[in-house]
């Protein structure tokens, strides 16, 4: 095990970089960060549209979200892989394919988190903002969303964990993220697949468990703050 780490740790972390494209764990993380970063604004728009008082906005977005949530991510990846090129007119590499799929997929999930957040804050807040004379959109922007986003922090961290796990599907389209690299290492070593994949699992575990503990801590912290305020 030690010997395995000793030989391959750099390859595992960054792929062939700097002699080739960046890969490995670094690529996994970059993909997850960018995926969530781009998915968030899109999810926000979808989430607001999902509770919009206007049917012509609410229905198509609701349908889109239901379709994406009813479809495996791998299906989305395949659609992106085969049809992005004809859509954009140029060859899309695996990185952009995967990123596009992740953004679309995560945006649909974030939209539901945001919708639940908006509905959880309740009519009371909207009504009092409206009664002060704010327009619907201003009430959203100034009163509702700031509360939603603050309460959402733990869910965002959890979504980040989910995104990290999702990037592993890049493996299937040949993206050199960390699972792919692990398999490359396995083919080179040949004799110790159990150890190689245990190491892969351990790597994901440390990353994701750490983050989910952070989300747990944030959640408790937020709860305590809200309670302290309610008492004050």
């Amino acid at each position, binding site marked *: 095990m030690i010997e395995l780490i000793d030989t391959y740790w750099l390859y595992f972390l960054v792929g062939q970089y700097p002699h080739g494209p960046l890969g490995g764990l670094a690529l996994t993380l970059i993909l997850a960060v960018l995926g969530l970063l781009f998915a968030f604004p899109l999810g926000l728009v979808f989430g607001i549209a999902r509770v919009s008082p206007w049917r012509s906005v609410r229905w198509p977005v609701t349908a889109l979200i239901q379709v994406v949530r009813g479809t495996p991510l791998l299906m989305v990846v395949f659609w992106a892989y085969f049809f992005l090129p004809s859509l954009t007119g140029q060859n899309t590499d695996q990185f952009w394919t995967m990123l596009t799929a992740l953004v679309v997929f995560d945006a649909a999930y974030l939209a539901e988190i945001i919708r639940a957040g908006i509905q959880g804050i309740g009519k009371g807040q909207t009504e009092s903002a409206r009664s002060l004379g704010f327009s619907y959109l201003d009430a959203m922007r100034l009163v509702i969303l700031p509360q939603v986003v603050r309460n959402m922090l733990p869910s965002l961290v959890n979504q980040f964990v989910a995104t990290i796990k999702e990037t592993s599907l890049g493996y299937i389209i040949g993206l050199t993220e960390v699972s792919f690299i692990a398999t490359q290492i396995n083919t080179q070593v040949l004799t110790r697949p159990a150890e190689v994949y245990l190491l892969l699992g351990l790597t994901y575990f440390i*990353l994701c468990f750490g983050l989910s503990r952070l989300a747990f801590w944030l959640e408790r912290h937020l709860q305590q703050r809200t309670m302290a305020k309610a008492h004050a």
Partner: protein
Amino acid sequence: MTPIFDLNLLLTGTYHDWLVAGLITSLSLTGISLALALPLAIVIALIRLSPVKLLQWSGFAFVEAIRNVPLLAHLLFWYFGAPELLPTALREWLYARNVEATSAIIALTLYTAAYMSEDVRSGIRSIPGQQFEAARALGFSFVASMRLVVLPQALRVTIPPLISQTLNLWKDTSIATVIGVAELMYQAAKVESATFRSFEAFAFASVCYLGMSLLITGAAGWYQGRFPVRTA
């Protein structure tokens, strides 16, 4: 002259058969894994709720170790890694059979059970302790109190999230492609490379995934209408 969308390809012939075989495999994977995961999940949940610290802790470790590693990495481990750890005779016995499907079922079962056990646990915890106490005061044993009073109530709370975990399981079977299980996604890709009709092949798979997802979501809605959660 080939039509733009060759519906015939999907409705009859070899390729149709391939796709349908894939669909059946996906459904079987879901059914078998669900049947194994449910009891496992209940056992894990009870272990996590037991008064013994060591048991609680090992339940927690199991759940977190599984949830914080992507399903893809689980599949790679169970397919490439784990058989190496088996004694030769057993390994050969396994390889003579369907090792792909076996690995997939193990990975899907463990992954699903980890998530489901959390739903079962929070379902049980949502039942106030006084319910258990009232049952004990009537003279029911620990097991009888759980079985007759706590679990039936917890079930009502737990079934909807369990159904949504089943939806995840259904979508997750697509990832078994990675180890060569001939499920729906695998067969769609096979048809795609045999015919270059990517659109038809993926449309078929998408419609299947989506249709089944809608059925599962519908089941959750039906259940909640039929068996409302009752509180005193």
